[in-house]
């Protein structure tokens, strides 16, 4: 299996057969604290990759940098061959690289359906002048609404369609945020702790959704502390610690890697990588 994903041995920063995202020397410092210092990493296309690591490892910061929400001190990265350094966040999303946030950003005072519609791209009615002439955007709106309704059904939020997002539970908001991201029809989906706070009854179906994305041809990169989920659905695991990539490989092999155990034990001694116990993250 690994031979189909990586070129050569599964070492930190190894090249991939078909990478969709390639980052080089991405470095971000907060004062004296180096939050991210990634020499080289490649994300394989069409697969599910997990980014794991103890709290404060720099995973969220790395997401922020890659998606244009934060600027690195140095570094370069390409998405599908297009250089992204310095590209503003909204353009990154338009290119098909969409992310969710660790702290859910549901748009509380608008309805669940409007949240979803907001994810759609190329709605001409989003331009100030065309907004005034409904016939110019009515058909797009119908198409968008149909697509949104379908996704809401898939995420079991269809009954909440007309409610304000504020009325959803924390887990439902996570689901809404993910569904909304999918409305952009991305090629790469980056999920920052998609399972945190989600009702355990829903986790299984969430896993199925993520597998479904892969079946539809999307690439998924997600941050997660739930080792059960990581082992269950990821094709590849990348481990970060103290801003650096310290290990890579297929899930079962990475969990045995001494560098990984070190990284985790360095931060919290109570995390047992062998069981399904969930490490609390922030």
């Amino acid at each position, binding site marked *: 299996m690994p031979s189909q994903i990586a070129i050569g041995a599964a070492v930190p920063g190894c090249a991939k057969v078909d990478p969709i995202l390639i980052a080089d020397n991405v470095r971000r410092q907060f004062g004296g604290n180096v939050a991210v210092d990634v020499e080289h990493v490649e994300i394989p296309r069409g697969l599910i990759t997990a980014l794991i690591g103890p709290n404060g490892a720099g995973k969220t910061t790395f997401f922020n940098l890659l998606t244009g929400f934060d600027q690195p001190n140095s570094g370069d990265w390409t998405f599908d061959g297009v250089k992204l350094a310095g590209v503003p966040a909204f353009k990154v999303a338009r290119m098909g690289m969409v992310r969710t946030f660790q702290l859910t950003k549901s748009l509380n005072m608008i309805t669940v359906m409007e949240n979803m519609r907001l994810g759609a791209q190329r709605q001409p009615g989003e331009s100030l002048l065309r*907004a005034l002439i409904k016939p110019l955007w009515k058909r797009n709106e119908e198409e968008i609404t149909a697509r949104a309704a379908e996704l809401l059904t898939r995420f079991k939020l269809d009954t909440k369609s007309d409610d304000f997002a504020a009325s959803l539970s924390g887990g439902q908001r996570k689901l809404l945020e993910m569904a909304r991201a999918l409305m952009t029809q991305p090629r790469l989906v980056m999920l920052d702790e998609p399972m945190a706070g989600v009702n355990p009854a829903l986790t299984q179906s969430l896993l199925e959704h993520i597998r479904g994305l892969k079946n539809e041809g999307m690439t998924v990169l997600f941050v997660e502390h739930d080792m059960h989920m990581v082992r269950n659905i990821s094709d590849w695991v990348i481990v970060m610690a103290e801003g650096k990539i310290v290990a890579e490989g297929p899930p079962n092999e990475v969990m045995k890697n001494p560098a990984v155990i070190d990284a985790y034990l360095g931060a919290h001694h109570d995390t047992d990588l062998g069981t399904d116990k969930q490490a609390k993250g922030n």
Partner: protein
Amino acid sequence: MDLILGNAISWLFQPITAAYALAAIGIALHFGFTGLLNFGQAVFMAVGAYGFSISVKFFGLGFWPAVGVAVIASIAMAFLLGIPTLRLRSDYLAIVTIAAAEVFRFIVSTTSAQPVTGGPQGLNQYSDGFYAMNPIPVGHYKFWVWDFNQDDLFAIAVSWVVVVFFAILLAILIRSPWGRVIKGIREDEDAVRSLGKNVYSYKMQSLVVGGLMGTFAGILFVLPTSVQPGNYGTTLTFYIWTILLLGGASTVIGSIVGAMIFWSLLSLTGDLLSTGVDNGTITFLTQNQVGAIRFILVGVALMLLVIFRPQGIFGNKKELYFNA
């Protein structure tokens, strides 16, 4: 008594009320729908008042070109205020707008600017071009306790046509996909950015459109009266915010009704108090204090409103902004 009531009721439809309503609709777009803290709506009104009147008086332009100058000046002002602040946290816009309004007022009221702006005296008699378009026959029109001439009626009619036009425009905009993006920005601009929207551009568009409403309000405000620099202080902005919160920040109709209530109440309390002072029933106030006390009463009414109905009269309880 009829006179007092008639006076209060006339404030429901005075051009001044229309002007305040329109300015409030502008900040409904800024604050209620986009989340922008514009504490300088007075500057957009001043740009309208001075842009229009200077064009007529100093440059000798006709009515429509003068309106065009005000519109261009308003858009320029929105860019001037927005470019340095809209990428920053929301409080920066608040500081810059409040300061800009004061700076503008100081500049136009200096004596060295007198030849153009009229300095501290301001400007008057620039409305001939406007009243020349009046189709209403010359005469006095009496209803109940009111007595209007043809120009009064024309100013009232035009003012409310303009207000209704912009109210409908805003209602259409906020129900459109454009409005959806705007409301999304109010809730969480990073989320909207992550969905591929150019947040900075939308905030700028909102600032320009809401500012234009302020500018048209400024023109309506001065057409039947005169341009007085003292009118464009922070109190003007404060009254407009009062009206906005009174009616409900994320509504369109709220600004209109808010302006009506605000001005009628001011008139009613003022008239009642001064009658009371005159006929001796109120002994603890002098006539001079009545002007101030009625604003205190309005302030108290606003406090009660924020406590007991924080979403405003027309606001939806779920769309609430005092939830911090």
